[in-house]
């Protein structure tokens, strides 16, 4: 149905192509997955098929044949008006970020109807409306009549993505291109959206080109897979073969880097007797202020009565979906946000009673690594300055010479070269910056590091490196980690115990293996069931059955 031959894309004035000689074909009704790490050119390929590449690119070379109701057409040879008729009509597209891909000033219904009027001018107003409502029902939006008149801001992320799908499908295209459609969504919603796309594919008999970086997703819904690496397609085949018996070295490396396939970490003895942190009924309530006098009328309970303790050398995973309060919990432990109730004891000493100076001294023992490697380092300072400044503030080392020497050893421990000291953050990749972020936490020789989604912005192979570094450091330094994440694979790989949170409250706390095997809370069961795993691949049979 779609036949791409020798597609090559390059930037203007650059010899090195970003996508080189990509050839693949998608059959009618097939779920075709394009997998690769960031920067591999998978999104570019989709944009080229749609003919919506940025102006900074040269016109792509090769052939893109679309064969459908009529004779086959080479999309690359078509002019803009002809392409406009095909886009939205025969090829629909959905993007990664549901929060920004709907126009906030028009109602959901108006935006869908606009697409329909453009591509089905023969329909009258009544038919357009009926078809729009039908497609809203198709994507399983509850109460489509009412949603029709809603503005996008009233919808949640998952609902918006459903509207996007409805918009892409309203003209009944034969091909749907989905560019990372679930990456920005929570895992339970991801599962629903994937099921929805798959069901609609079956119902309408359309082909789907699903772009993703997640092998779990591929294993769950994919029929056939192509793996992209640095602009080249390195492997193609059915999902089962590629995932379970990959023959290209790169694919094997990717699959091996999945947390569930990483070699297990050596067991680390936990000094269960030494209670590092005792958290008792910790609360963070943000007041909702209203009126002239700014009186609190209500509270947002971001963290509500969370209690746990942490032994020296232990890894505790805090798991939950976005907005469950796990990041707020981390920041409240560090007193970056003031808790409104409960207590945090460090070695038996209550932190909330500490004065400012005492708190500053204690900060040495509790460190943090953040999620976004782009913003976690000061862009104006060299790595050396970033690393030695906290040491100087805590009186570690006699002079800058000695501190620099210490910084170099720590950089070595996170597998960074020593000359990184004299460079600025923008010269490093995301994974390297994350390692520097870990180094910044380590130079103070802390007992606890709070890792706030440290791997979620990273590719899977980089994630594997970071996880291994963290595992090794933990063993070497008797480091306790509070690992905040939404990624179940990472939790299983690294943590001793896990704490499941939902809407600010604890749902479950227990040994990781026990919770995974026998979840007690209903919510934990729901969460675990939604995680796409490579190991439970059954492809389309599972969905059909």
């Amino acid at each position, binding site marked *: 149905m779609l036949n791409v031959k020798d597609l090559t894309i390059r*930037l203007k004035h650059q010899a090195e192509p*970003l996508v080189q000689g990509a050839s693949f074909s998608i059959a009618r009704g097939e779920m075709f997955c394009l997998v690769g790490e*960031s*920067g591999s*050119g*998978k*999104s*570019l390929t989709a944009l080229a098929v749609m003919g919506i590449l*940025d102006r*900074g*690119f040269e016109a792509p070379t090769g052939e893109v044949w679309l064969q459908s109701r009529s004779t086959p057409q080479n999309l690359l040879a078509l002019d803009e008006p002809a392409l406009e008729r095909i886009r939205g009509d025969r090829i629909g597209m959905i993007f*990664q970020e549901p929060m920004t891909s709907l126009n906030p000033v028009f109602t959901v219904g108006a935006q869908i109807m606009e697409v329909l009027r453009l591509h089905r001018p023969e329909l009258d107003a009544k038919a357009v409306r009926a078809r729009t409502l039908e497609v809203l029902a198709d994507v399983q939006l509850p109460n489509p009549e009412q949603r029709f008149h809603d503005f996008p801001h009233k919808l949640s992320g998952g609902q918006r993505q459903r509207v996007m799908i409805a918009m892409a499908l309203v003209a009944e295209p034969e091909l749907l291109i989905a560019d*990372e459609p679930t990456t920005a969504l929570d895992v339970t919603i991801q599962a629903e959206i994937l099921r929805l796309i798959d069901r609609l594919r079956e119902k309408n008999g359309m082909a789907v080109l699903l772009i993703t970086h997640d092998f779990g997703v591929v294993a769950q819904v994919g029929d056939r897979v192509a793996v992209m690496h640095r602009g080249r397609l390195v492997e193609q085949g059915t999902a089962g073969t590629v995932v379970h018996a990959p023959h290209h070295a790169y694919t094997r490396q990717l699959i091996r880097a999945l947390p569930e396939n990483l070699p297990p970490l050596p067991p680390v003895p936990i000094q269960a007797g030494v209670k590092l942190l005792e958290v008792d009924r910790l609360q963070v309530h943000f007041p909702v202020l209203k009126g002239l006098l700014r009186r609190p009328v209500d509270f947002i309970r971001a963290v509500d009565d969370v209690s746990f303790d942490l032994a020296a050398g232990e890894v505790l995973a805090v798991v939950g979906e976005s907005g469950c309060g796990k990041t707020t919990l981390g*920041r409240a432990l*560090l007193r*970056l946000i003031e808790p409104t109730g409960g207590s945090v004891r460090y070695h038996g000493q209550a932190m909330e009673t500490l004065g400012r100076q005492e*708190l*500053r*001294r*204690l*900060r*040495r023992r*509790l*460190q*943090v690594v*953040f*999620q*976004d490697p782009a*913003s*976690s*380092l*000061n*862009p*104006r*300072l060299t790595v050396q300055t970033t690393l030695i*400044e*906290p040491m100087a*503030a*805590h009186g570690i080392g006699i002079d800058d*010479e000695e501190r*620099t020497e210490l910084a*170099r050893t720590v950089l070595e421990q996170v597998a960074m070269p*020593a*000359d990184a*000291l*004299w*460079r*600025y953050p*923008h*010269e490093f990749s995301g994974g390297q910056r994350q390692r520097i*972020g870990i180094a*910044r936490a380590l130079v*103070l020789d802390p007992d606890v590091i709070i890792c706030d989604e440290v791997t979620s912005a990273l590719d899977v192979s980089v994630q594997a490196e970071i996880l291994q570094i963290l595992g090794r450091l933990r063993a070497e330094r008797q480091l306790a980690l509070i690992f905040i994440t939404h990624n179940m694979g990472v939790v299983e790989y690294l943590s001793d115990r896990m704490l499941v949170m939902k809407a600010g409250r604890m749902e479950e706390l227990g040994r990781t293996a026990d919770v995974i095997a026998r979840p007690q809370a209903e919510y934990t069961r729901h969460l675990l069931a939604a995680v796409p795993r490579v190991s439970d691949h059954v492809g389309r049979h599972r969905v059909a059955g």
Partner: protein
Amino acid sequence: MTERVSSPSFSRRILSEVLLRWGARLGIAWIGVLTLIAVFAPLLANTHPLLVQDAEGWSSPMLRFLGPADATLFGAFGLGVLLLLLPGRPFWRFLGWLAGLAILAAVSFALVSPPSLVVYEQYREAEAQGAYQQVIRAPIPYSAKDYLRDYADTGLEAPHGSGDERRHWFGTDENGADVLSRMIHATRIALSIGFIATGIALMIGVILGGLMGYFSGIVDMLGMRLVEIFEAIPTLFLLLTFVAFFGRSLYLMMLIIGLTSWSGYARYVRAEFLRLRQQDFVQGAIASGLSLPSILFRHMLPNGMAPILVAASFGVASAILAEATLSFLGLGLVDDPSWGQMLNQAVQSSTFNWWLAAFPGGAIFLTVFAYNLIGEALRDAVDPHAQSGKPAVAAKAAG
């Protein structure tokens, strides 16, 4: 210590990004030329000859009549060039320059005292009588306040060049003074009012805005009310009132323009600090137990400075315009030359004197335009979405 592998710092990258743009290069070149003209105005346009040889030998009336301000400017320029050639961090060199400037100003105002009586005609008369064996004159042999009293019947004259006894490239004003000379000397006022007024505004704006942004809460609320109060004050009318009460003074003008235009900078800095506070690296700095001054001035201010510089370069332009407006309305300085005051003369007499409109007007236009070009280039360089081509596309290509 291992070998330092040098890599461009953030400010260096911004600078090279700015210099990529033609508009910015033109703007910087024009401001540079103006600065040179302003510093060396006495050498360029002066009735006092630079050097004369008479019966007593060589002498330099020009040097004898240099004022303390001229001496300070010469010294500051020399010091600036010297410090540019010396190694060291730009910030410290800049501080050193400021300190040198203060010392120079104190010394020259204490020591330099030119004769208070100036008779411009004496040189021309002496030359006519053949008292000088050799004279080296400035390129424009007229001072800004040389009203050519020795020539009868001077006044408004259109530009005329060779063939005449006197040569006025840009004509003369109604007092008979050379327009080009006055424009050259007015450069000082135009540049200094822009820099000093904006400097005052920046200082107040950055401090107040920074406090508002970092502490937020009640500090922020009070600060924003103060900003709103100052935004309600119309600068021009305040200036008019002050001139009416306290007479005309350049320094008062700078102060008032500075005191009334800081609110915009305060808003910018506040917004930047509110944003930066949430950034992970600032949170990380707090979590590392760094002190408040370090967090504010090392981690937050340098990262929030870029948009403020953009605003400041537009601010300089508007301060120059404010002074020109005031002078045009006849409320500027009395005798000292200023571009706006010359524009005023263009429409004073019954005829329209085009040379008094075109040349000073052109200078104001070019200078304001140059600052705007620099501001535009800075804004583009700072804005990550408008990077010159490649990075933005590469970012889009990822994923």
